[in-house]
């Protein structure tokens, strides 16, 4: 809506419009709504939301079941403490269920096989993005065009968004069609395509692959980003790192946003002791630094992507909840909340349709700070060798090149550039999204 048209409407001659209104009242009856019929109809949920609820419940059952079979029925710190009860629990009962089987203590599902723990979280996050993000946009093309018109005014954000979509797609598809880079003796130190380096940097097998002549080796398309000191393909490493960065950033942030927003809205709406308990808990939780909690877990049970997401997603939401609470407290006193109550709305409706959209500034700002910082934290932990040792991430690649920055500079630099651009893009995107979805904001010119 352009500014001109809104001004024009505000300046509508009051007299003529009143006359029209008065005339209208005189000759028309109000629509009679048959409330009894409406009350008698048992309002079920729409097909769409029933499908979504089914998906979520299947997910929750399968994920919960997997954890239960592996950690309560199978051998773990937890099951050791169950004593005689543990003997009664035998993981092999899974075999009796059709379509399921047991694979090394883990439940194996048809088609997907054994799903890694972090992938459970990653998939439900992606499903959530589709259901709450993409689907409404697809269903309301008019609204989508409206937001797009506003969003595209911010060129940097459009480019950032595009970059992130590409990173996501390449990472998501790429890490499924390619295997993880494996170290290979002798293939080390190959430079990226078109880049030359002294041949003593390159391993004996690598010298055959790269274009070597006169003591200088030049990279070829076989290893477009070169190789690491242990002969891993950096190109593959970067692709796999893309998914890891996206997964950690989006999953952990989604989890903490849902928890933070939920806690903030419920405690603000109901107030009283609910608010008191929730936010005293936040106070306590904020005294545990997630980073050290993670270190503790790395040393006690070993680092893994799942634990990393768990820590950042389920422990780090306190600060966000506080920001959202303070914003929601202001909104709660607005007359439109009372108006909604006066219309007969239930608490869930009021929270979803009125409180939530009006604290979205805080939510988006929080997300745009949280995603990059979690991505950076994961990179930092991997750099320190505290990440998931089974997965190649950008932080690991950067760490690999740190001793040879002078000669093999590309090992650290290439993943570093991707990390830099990804973090930057999330920040740009956050700003633009916040402006685009606020109808009062006419957008950056």
């Amino acid at each position: 809506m352009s500014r001109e048209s809104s001004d024009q409407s505000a300046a509508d001659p009051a007299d003529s419009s009143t006359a029209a209104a008065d005339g209208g009242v005189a000759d028309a009856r109000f629509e009679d709504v048959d409330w009894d019929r409406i009350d008698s109809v048992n309002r079920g949920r729409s097909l769409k939301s029933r499908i979504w609820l089914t998906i979520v419940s299947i997910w929750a059952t399968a994920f919960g079941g997997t954890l239960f079979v592996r950690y309560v029925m199978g051998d773990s710190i937890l099951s050791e403490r169950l004593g005689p009860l543990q003997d009664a629990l035998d993981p092999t009962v899974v075999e009796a269920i059709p379509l399921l089987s047991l694979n090394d203590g883990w439940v194996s599902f048809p088609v997907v096989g054994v799903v890694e723990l972090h992938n459970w979280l990653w998939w439900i996050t992606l499903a959530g993005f589709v259901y709450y993000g993409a689907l409404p946009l697809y269903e309301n093309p008019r609204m989508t065009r409206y937001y797009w018109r506003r969003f595209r005014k911010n060129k940097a954000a459009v480019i950032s968004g595009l970059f992130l979509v590409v990173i996501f797609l390449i990472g998501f598809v790429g890490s499924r069609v390619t295997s993880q880079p494996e170290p290979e003796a002798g293939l080390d130190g190959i430079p990226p395509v078109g880049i030359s380096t002294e041949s003593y940097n390159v391993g004996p097998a690598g010298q055959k692959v790269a274009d070597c002549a006169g003591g200088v080796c030049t990279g070829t398309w076989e290893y477009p980003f070169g190789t690491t000191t242990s002969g891993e393909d950096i190109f593959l490493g970067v692709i796999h790192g893309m998914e890891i960065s996206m997964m950690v950033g989006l999953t952990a942030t989604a989890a903490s946003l849902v928890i933070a927003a939920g806690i903030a809205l419920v405690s603000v709406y109901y107030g009283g002791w609910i608010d008191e308990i929730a936010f005293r808990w936040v106070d306590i939780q904020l005294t545990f630094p997630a980073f050290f909690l993670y270190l503790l877990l790395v040393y006690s049970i070993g680092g893994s992507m799942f634990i990393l997401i768990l820590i950042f997603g389920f422990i780090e939401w306190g600060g966000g909840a506080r920001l959202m609470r303070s914003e929601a407290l202001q909104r709660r006193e607005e007359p439109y909340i009372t108006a909604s109550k006066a219309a007969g709305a239930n608490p869930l409706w009021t929270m979803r349709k009125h409180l939530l959209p009006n604290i979205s500034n805080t939510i988006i700002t929080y997300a745009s700070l949280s995603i990059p910082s979690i991505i950076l934290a994961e990179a930092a932990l991997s750099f320190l060798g505290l990440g998931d040792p089974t997965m190649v991430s950008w932080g690991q690649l950067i760490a690999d090149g740190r001793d040879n920055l002078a000669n093999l500079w590309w090992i650290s630099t290439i993943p570093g550039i991707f990390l830099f651009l990804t973090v930057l893009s999330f920040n740009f995107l956050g700003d633009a999204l916040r402006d685009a979805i606020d109808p009062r904001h006419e957008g950056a010119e």
Partner: protein
Amino acid sequence: MSSSTSLFEVRNLEKHYPINRGLFNTEVGRVRAVDGISFSVERGETIGIVGESGCGKSTAATSMIRLEEPTAGEIDFRGEDITEYDEKELRRFRREVQMIFQDPDSSFNPRMNIGNAVAEPLIVQGFDDEQRRRAIVGDLLERVGLSADDMNRFPHEFSGGQKQRIALARALAVNPSLLVADEPVSALDVSIQSEVLRLIDRFQDELGLAVVVISHDLGVVQEICDRVAVMYLGEFVEVGPTEELFTDPQHPYTRALLSAIPTPDPTERGLGVELTGDVPEPSDPPSGCRFHTRCPEVIPPEGIDLAQDTWRSVLHLRKQVIADQVDLESIAEVGAIEAGDEFGSMDEVEAEDIDNDRLIGWVRQEYELPNQLGDTSAEQTLSQALEELVSGQQEAAAETLTERFETVCERQDPETRSLSPDHRVACHLTDDSVVGSTDSENEYRRQLSSPE
């Protein structure tokens, strides 16, 4: 649902807010925002509730339709007590009763477009048919003078008057039988006010809507209301038909409010009553009649016969003495300045250096009291109290004044009595058993009823 029951009837509605302090949130007091009000609304009738800011009007509005839980009282809608309603029944009740709010800017969710905002009552009441919903909303918008195309626009694109009309459309979406309008026009320009009021009036005629209008503006109330309730500090002091109440107000507070209406006619000076001071704290309301601290017509105690303004001045002095707020030093300084050279330099003037009789004179001047009161027994008390005051015995002076000048207004809560079937008032002045026991009081009442 017999025809004899009113559409909406409120009996002894109370809304108190506890004041909690300390570590264990113990209740240390209560703000009596609404303290026992009763009224009824018939089908198609408009009731106005007027009063100053802070008298509890808005709280009355929200608690009478259970947007806030009332502390006590009964609220009948179509003969059913809505305070007993459970959640489901309450939701049905919300279809019948809608509300519009004072500030049109904040009564719309800035992130919800107008179409959804107007449709909200329908949606939350379970009206699923989207096509028909859009038709209803479009029709409503047109009835309030906007266009159906405005549905997709957001609240910030409309002016205050337009938003208030949209608020009316939203309230009427479920076709209610009662509309509660809390200061519906006070945030609007005067030119737009009447437009919105006319719209409410029209809808009321067409739909047989009952309306409760909350306002501090008597002009608004006079324009659209059939009956008016005047509220002071959580209580109704007078309830009556608009016409009667405006021409023959019985409560001094009503008279004061009426005299505050600006009139374009310079020869018509109103009733010339002016209220001073603020509304007292509702957490600690005055004893007896709550209005007595500001009332221009406080009834003097038996046997004291004073002109009303002198009596008022005595009460003012008494209040100040009890609160220990009489500043003798500054009275002495002012007196010295007015007396001229006699006292030399201003800095040297001290209250205690000045002759008592002289200082008493100045105190009388300060409080606009004559040197000699018309009533001998009153004069005796006053001079005794002033004597005690200037000799530094503030407590003794307070006691003297309290003892002798205590009025029935602060001692006794006035009962609400009916002057005619639908005119009720709560004031000792209308009570013959209080006023009229002595000749002087009869005289006093006669004076009041025919000013000048």
